[in-house]
């Protein structure tokens, strides 16, 4: 009887500890489904495939790999640059895999995984605008997307620039193609994809020089360390098995629409 009396509090503590460990990762496993916020109009990261009308892309492939690694189904939900972090914080989505750059400011709000893609911010202009250097944008109009890092960075790089921000990349590009703005600035890959989709891609040229380096990370709610560690483990496994490189080759390899050399590896601590 005395041994039971000492055993019971220990058991109670053990059960309490189990309860404390029931976090988002456990929820996801018990649900059997992970909800991931993705872009749906940013090729080749997240866009709607013409034939099947499904959302596909580099980000979706990584989201699917993470879902497989956790042993759950994937549910991809479209988000925008402005809504992705609020939706994560409110619990509407479990992860953000949506061309999200890791910045110090965002790290105060959410946790990031290791980087799974690296690009840089560049400026796209029409050849007819006769702008050859970023500094020449002083006093001119540049389009971008509301709430993005590109908007802040271009203002820091060229203080006298006039930024006109739209709600999505296609609208910002339409403003450039119609001549309403002289340039558009965002991540290089997004600019390249928009340029290639345009009716006459040779009208446009990317200015040299990165305005900033943009490592993409997967967004996880603050404090969900179990989920973040699991995601990081899966990312490292993908790199080690060569699957990360395969996903990259699918969307950015020599035979793809947007050939870009792979200049990074998924590494621990980066």
């Amino acid at each position, binding site marked *: 009887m005395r041994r039971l009396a000492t055993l019971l509090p220990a058991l109670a503590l053990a059960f309490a500890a189990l309860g404390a460990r029931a976090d988002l990762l456990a929820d996801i496993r018990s649900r059997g489904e992970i909800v991931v916020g993705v872009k749906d109009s940013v090729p080749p990261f997240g866009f709607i495939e013409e034939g099947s009308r499904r959302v596909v892309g580099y980000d979706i492939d990584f989201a699917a790999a993470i879902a497989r690694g956790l042993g759950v189904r994937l549910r991809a939900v479209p988000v925008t640059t402005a809504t992705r972090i609020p939706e994560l914080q409110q619990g509407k989505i479990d992860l953000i895999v949506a061309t999200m750059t890791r910045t110090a400011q965002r790290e105060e709000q959410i946790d990031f995984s290791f980087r799974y893609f690296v690009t840089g911010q560049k400026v796209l202009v029409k050849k007819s605008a006769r702008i050859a250097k970023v500094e020449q944008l002083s006093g001119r109009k540049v389009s971008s997307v*509301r709430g993005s890092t590109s908007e802040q960075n271009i203002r820091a790089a060229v203080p006298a620039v006039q930024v*006109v921000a739209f*709600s999505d990349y296609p609208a910002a590009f*339409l*403003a450039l193609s119609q*001549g309403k703005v002289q340039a558009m600035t965002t991540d290089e890959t997004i600019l390249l994809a928009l340029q290639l989709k345009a009716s006459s891609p040779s009208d446009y040229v990317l200015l040299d020089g990165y305005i900033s380096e943009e490592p993409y990370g997967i967004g996880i709610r*603050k404090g969900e360390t179990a989920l973040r560690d699991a995601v990081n483990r899966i990312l490292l496994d993908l790199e080690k098995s060569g699957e990360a490189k395969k996903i990259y080759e699918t969307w950015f390899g020599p035979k793809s629409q947007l050939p870009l050399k792979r200049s990074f590896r998924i590494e621990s601590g980066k």
Partner: protein
Amino acid sequence: MSKPLDFAFLLSGQYHDALVAGLVTTLELSGLALAAALALGVIVAVLRLAPAAPPRWIAAVYIEFVRNTPLLVQLLFWYFGAPQLLPQPVLDWLYARNFEFAAAFVGLALYTAAFIAEDIRSGVRAIPRTQMEAARACGMHYLQAMRLVILPQALRAMVPPLVNQALNLVKNSSLAMAIGVAELMYQTREVESYTFRSFEAFAAATTLYLLLSLAITAGAAAYEWRATKHRVA
């Protein structure tokens, strides 16, 4: 996990300046669009009530088309669609200036004018037909009768519906952010994106819109009070 509310960043500094700049733009856009919409609304209402059929039909088509399409679609049309029909030199001249504001002004004014025209029409219908008959009997033609007899009576009675349209216009001006106009809602979303303080930013925007609407309502009440001061009944 939510941090305590902190409004300090709104009272001074770059975010405060951004919101104030947005408010000023909203005031400019709403004020100009309202003036244009009132003028255009009166013209369209007079056309809608004309004795001749062609002006009536033109006005009716305009009103039905504008009232039954979403304002956002109309704004996108004026900003992205309509300019494609103009010649390039005109476009270059337009785009060198604040074309975003101009397109929003045109879209908002045309949209609100249709609703104002219908409100004026119902105000005019409330005037007894004998007024028009008496005016015509005095030798005035239709336009003179409207200008000197009917409209002055109708407009005084129509202040409540017109205030309604003015308030709608102020709220609708927030849609201009879709075409890049840096008005209050645009600046609020920017501040919210950079500071992540959604509640404080939206509370500030809501308060400012509320103050603006209350000011319009108070102004209209003062006008009504003054206008009816000399009435016997």
